[in-house]
C-alpha cells in the first residue's frame, strides 16, 4: 500500500457520499469547460471559413430586423465593393423539428459566386436557377435524411407563412453542393424569388447582405462607407467582417459572457459548500483514526497533508472527468450554434489547463481548514473521546 492507496481507501469509506460529491464537482467542471469554450470562441480571431475579403451588412440595431432589397444597388455602388448577395433566416421545421438545419432563401448565381468554397455542379446550379421552387443542399444531407434529387421536401413555416395562409412550403430538391468548411455546411438553400412571391408579409426585404470587397486591407473603410450610405435612411446598417457577424449573432441569443460568469459563480459556490461539508464531516468522524495514525508516528504535517490530499484528489478527479466530458460535448454543442457563424467551436487546451488549476485550488480551499485541524489534533484527547 502507498500513501495514495491510503487516500483512495479513505474516499471509499462512504462511497455514496463520495460519488455524489464527485458528481457535483464533475457537473461544475463540465459547465466550466463548455462555457469557457464558448468564451474562447467569442474572443477568437477570424476562424477557418471566415473570409477577410467579405463583409456582412445587417440592420444596425438588431440582426433580426430585415433590410429592404433596394439597398443592394446602393451597396454595389459603394467604392471598393466588388459583388453583393443576400440571405434571410427562414426558420421553419422539417419533420416536426426533430432535425434542425438552417434554411436560407438566396439568389442562386450571386450566392454561389460569393462563396467559392461552396462547390456546385454547373448543371445543378442551372437547375436551381431555373426551378422556382428549387432547393439545393449539402451532399451529406442526402444520406442524413434519405433524400434523392427530385424529392419534394415539405418545410413547416414558423416565421413565414405563405400569403394564402398555408404553412407548408414544398420545395423540389434539384441539386447538391459540397464544402470543406464545417461552419458553412448544413444550410438548406432555396430560391429567393419563390420566397418573395409566396410569403405573406415583409415583401421586398432580406435578412442580411454579404459583400465582397476589392481590397481586404480596406475592409474597415468600405464597411464604414456602406454604413454612412444608409446612416440617415429608414434602415441604417451595421457592417462587419463575417467572423464578427457570426459572433454578434450568437451574442444576440443572450449576453453569454455575463451569463457564463453568473452561472459559474453560482455553481462553484454550491460545490464549495457541498465539498466543504463533505470534508468537514469526513474529518469529524475520523478524528480517532487520525489520532491512531499519529500514535504510529505519522507527524502532524503528514496527517494534515493526507487530509488536504484527499480533498484535492476528490476535486481533481471530478474536475478532470468534467472537463473531459466538456471536450467530448464540444462538437455536439457546435451543432446548436448558428451555422453561418463561420468558426466552429474548438476545445482549447488552455481551458483544460485552467480547469485543472481551478480544481486544485478548489481542493485546497475546501481542504485547508480540515487539514489544519487534523494537523493540530492532540492524540491523547482524541483517543479519550473515541
Amino acid at each position, binding site marked *: 500500500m502507498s500513501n495514495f492507496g491510503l487516500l483512495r481507501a479513505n474516499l471509499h469509506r462512504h462511497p455514496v457520499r463520495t460519488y455524489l460529491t464527485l458528481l457535483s464537482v464533475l457537473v461544475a467542471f463540465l459547465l466550466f469547460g463548455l462555457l469557457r469554450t464558448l468564451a474562447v470562441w467569442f474572443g477568437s480571431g477570424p476562424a477557418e471559413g471566415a473570409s477577410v475579403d467579405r463583409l456582412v451588412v445587417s440592420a444596425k440595431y438588431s440582426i433580426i430586423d430585415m433590410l429592404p432589397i433596394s439597398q443592394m444597388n446602393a451597396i454595389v455602388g459603394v467604392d471598393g465593393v466588388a459583388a453583393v448577395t443576400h440571405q434571410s433566416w427562414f426558420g421553419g421545421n422539417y419533420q416536426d423539428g426533430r432535425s434542425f438545419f438552417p434554411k436560407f432563401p438566396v439568389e442562386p448565381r450571386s450566392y454561389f459566386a460569393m462563396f467559392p468554397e461552396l462547390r456546385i455542379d454547373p448543371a445543378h446550379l442551372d437547375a436551381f436557377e431555373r426551378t422556382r421552387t428549387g432547393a439545393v443542399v449539402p451532399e451529406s444531407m442526402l444520406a442524413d435524411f434519405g433524400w434523392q434529387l427530385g424529392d419534394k421536401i415539405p418545410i413547416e413555416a414558423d416565421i413565414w407563412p405563405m400569403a394564402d395562409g398555408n404553412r407548408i412550403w414544398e420545395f423540389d430538391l434539384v441539386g447538391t453542393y459540397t464544402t470543406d468548411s464545417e461552419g458553412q455546411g448544413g444550410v438548406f438553400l432555396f430560391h429567393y424569388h419563390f420566397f418573395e412571391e409566396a410569403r405573406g408579409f415583409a415583401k421586398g426585404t432580406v435578412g442580411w447582405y454579404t459583400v465582397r470587397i476589392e481590397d481586404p486591407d480596406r475592409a474597415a473603410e468600405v464597411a464604414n462607407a456602406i454604413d454612412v450610405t444608409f446612416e440617415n435612411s429608414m434602415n441604417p446598417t451595421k457592417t462587419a467582417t463575417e467572423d464578427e457577424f457570426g459572433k454578434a449573432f450568437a451574442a444576440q441569443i443572450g449576453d453569454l459572457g455575463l451569463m457564463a460568469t453568473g452561472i459559474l459563480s453560482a455553481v462553484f459556490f454550491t460545490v464549495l459548500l457541498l465539498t466543504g461539508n463533505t470534508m468537514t464531516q469526513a474529518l469529524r468522524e475520523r478524528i480517532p483514526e487520525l489520532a491512531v*495514525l499519529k500514535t504510529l508516528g505519522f507527524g502532524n504535517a503528514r496527517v494534515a497533508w493526507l487530509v488536504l490530499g484527499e480533498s484535492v484528489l476528490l476535486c481533481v478527479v471530478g474536475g478532470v472527468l468534467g472537463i473531459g466530458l466538456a471536450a467530448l460535448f464540444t462538437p455536439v454543442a457546435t451543432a446548436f450554434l448558428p451555422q453561418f457563424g463561420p468558426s466552429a467551436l474548438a476545445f482549447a487546451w488552455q481551458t483544460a489547463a485552467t480547469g485543472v488549476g481551478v480544481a486544485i485550488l478548489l481542493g485546497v480551499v475546501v481542504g485547508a481548514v480540515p487539514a489544519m485541524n487534523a494537523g493540530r489534533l492532540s492524540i491523547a484527547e482524541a*483517543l479519550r473521546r*473515541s
Partner: protein
Amino acid sequence: MAIIELSDVHKTFMKAREAVEVLMGIDLTVGEGDFVALMGPSGSGKTTLLNIIGGLDGATAGEVVVADANLDELSNRELARWRAATIGFVFQFYNLLPVLNAQRNVELPLLLTKLSGEQRRRNAQTALSIVGLNDRARHKPGELSGGQQQRVAIARAIVADPPILVCDEPTGDLDRENAEEILDLLQILNRDHGKTVIMVTHDPKAADHAKRVLHLDKGKLVQEVAA
C-alpha cells in the same frame, strides 16, 4: 539495563478551570525485556501514565527517559519519528482503520520507512504470520472477530520492530478464551522476541502473565508485587 526511567513525574489536567493532579510523583524503572502489568482502579491515571511513557502526552513535571531519549527535549516532529521507531501501541478497542484490510492496516507504520512496496508487503505478512492471521490478510476489520482484530493490532504494533510494546487494557473487550490467546501472544513476544511489554489491565489473571505487577492508586505507585 533500564529502558524506561521515570523520576518524580507529575501530570496535572485543567478540568473546568480547576487543576486536577492525576499523577503525583511517579518513580518507575523498567528493565529491557521486562513484562510489567499496571493495575489500579478506574480513573487512577493508568492511561495517562502509559501516554506519557509512549510519548503521546507530556509530563507536567519530572523526567521521562525512554529508550535513551529524554522525551521532554524532543520536538513534535522528533517525537513522532521516535514513536515510530520505539513504541508499538495496542489499545482496548483495537483502533484499526476500518477502510483498510488487515494486511494494509499492518503496513501502515511502514509507510514512514524507506522500505520498498514489496518489502513492506513482505514484512506485514511476516507480522501477520507471527499473530497467526495470514489467512485473514484480505479481511477488513469489520469482517473479523474481536480477538482477531486485536491480533491484527498487535501485528501492526510489531511490524516496525519497536523494542517496547505499550498495551492499554488489550483484553478489556474480549471474552476469556480470546483474552488468553492475546496474553499468550504478548508473552511470546516478550520471551522469544525480546520485547519490553508494559500493559494496563483490570484482570488479575492477565497480570499473571507479567513478570512484575504495579499498582497505581490516587496518582501514586503504591506497591510493587513480584509475580
